[in-house]
């Protein structure tokens, strides 16, 4: 039961000038950043929540930091706010320099939050110590402090104040990244909606087609329907042509001695025999056939003429 409160991770104090720390590859570590790795301000602000403070952080540090790409964080300490600025890139570079795998890092915190109740100076390397001055943890040469203790991290009770490093923050600004990401996501959503609408329309058309088949009692496939249509449209064309051809012959300007004596239709051909037709009187009849663009052949049969029309 008591083992529950023991550290399951190692605690490391990360400073550019100290190399004396116990890091085992593959074992999780809680990193405490040395005051050298961040900028801190203690301020009383006319706002109540940390969220409101975070919005103001870039402007609060604006004039006091050298030009670089900073990340910011803050937390409340009593009536005041502790404001932090740090460079993710520098921390990552130092972690890489110390050969600490990012997969092994359980958390990253500031020395300010972890040594909040520090009373004496703590030496961080042979030359430097840190101590609290007006509530803020600062680095000073060890020679400046009367007595400096050795840092013991094993029994240190860690606070809840951690930070998350932006590994690619220096490549692209977080806000811009969110904006671009949001635009791409919105675009993807628009496309999804478009696909959904088009698919709905498609299924609507499919349903309408099914209703069409049922309404007009069509056969199962369009091939069968086309075949039936071709069959009946051929009959329609042939019958129309037959009636037009018969009407044409019946309206021909025949002379008194000219008569239609035989009219026969078989195998898509119409045969008409007109009696009393001579070479001299044939022309008006042929002109009428030509005017109606009929395919015909003529042959003399006794005293008459036989006309064969292909329909």
């Amino acid at each position, binding site marked *: 039961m008591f083992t529950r409160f023991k550290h399951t991770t190692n605690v490391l104090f990360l400073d550019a000038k100290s190399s004396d720390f116990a890091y085992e590859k593959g074992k999780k570590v809680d990193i405490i950043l040395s005051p050298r790795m961040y900028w801190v301000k203690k301020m009383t602000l006319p706002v109540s929540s940390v969220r409101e403070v975070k919005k103001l952080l870039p402007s609060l540090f604006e004039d006091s930091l050298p030009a670089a790409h900073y990340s910011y964080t803050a937390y409340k300490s009593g009536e005041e706010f502790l404001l932090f600025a740090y460079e993710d890139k520098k921390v990552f570079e130092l972690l890489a320099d110390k050969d600490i795998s*990012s*997969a*092994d*890092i359980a958390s*990253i915190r500031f020395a300010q939050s972890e040594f909040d109740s520090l009373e004496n100076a703590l030496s961080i390397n042979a030359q430097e110590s840190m101590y609290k001055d007006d509530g803020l943890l600062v680095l000073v040469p060890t020679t400046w402090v009367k007595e400096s203790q050795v840092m013991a991290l094993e029994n240190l009770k860690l606070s809840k104040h951690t930070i998350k*490093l*932006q*590994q*690619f923050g220096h*490549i*692209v600004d977080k806000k811009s*990244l969110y904006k*671009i*990401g949001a635009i*791409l*996501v919105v*675009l*993807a959503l628009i*496309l*999804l909606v*478009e*696909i959904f609408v*088009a*698919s709905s*329309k*498609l299924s609507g*058309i*499919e349903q*309408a*087609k099914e209703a*069409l*088949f049922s*309404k*007009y009692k*069509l056969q199962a496939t*369009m091939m069968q*329907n*086309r075949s*039936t*249509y071709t069959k*009946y*449209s051929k*009959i*329609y064309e042939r*019958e129309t042509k*037959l*009636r037009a051809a*018969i*009407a044409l012959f019946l309206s021909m300007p025949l002379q008194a001695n000219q*008569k*239609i*004596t*035989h*009219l*026969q*239709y*078989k195998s898509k051909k119409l045969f008409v025999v007109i009696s009393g037709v001579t070479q001299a009187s044939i022309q008006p009849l042929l002109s009428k056939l030509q005017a109606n663009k009929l395919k015909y052949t003529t042959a003399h049969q006794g005293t008459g003429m036989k006309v064969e029309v292909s329909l």
Partner: protein
Amino acid sequence: MNQVNPLHIGALLLVVIMFLFFKLSGVKEELVDAKVSFGTSEKLAIDLQALKSVYANKKKSKISINRILAQSSIRAAKLILKRDKNSIRISSASIDTRTLNSLMGKILNGSYNIVALDIKKLNETKASLKMEIKW
């Protein structure tokens, strides 16, 4: 502490968007094809229904022909009628030309599928007739 490179997320989103673009263009193409196909089917269905109502309606054709043949002037001509499942053959060795005119006027003005016709003039008032109508 392992973080995903935002450029990788961006690339993934771009790939997703490209995939969606392709998918959308495919669906839109299908939609255009479906609209064209529906239009063609609708026109075919309407035309086919019109043609079927004329040439595939056996009952209607039979009733109509019987009505013509039942007319007193035509019935008096004593035409020879041979009916089978799909057709009717009408013939007469000698029919009055007036009756023939009346009969042919009615047949040719109706939508019947005439597959054979043979009219031969015998003299000024008489003619022979052979006709086959299918349905």
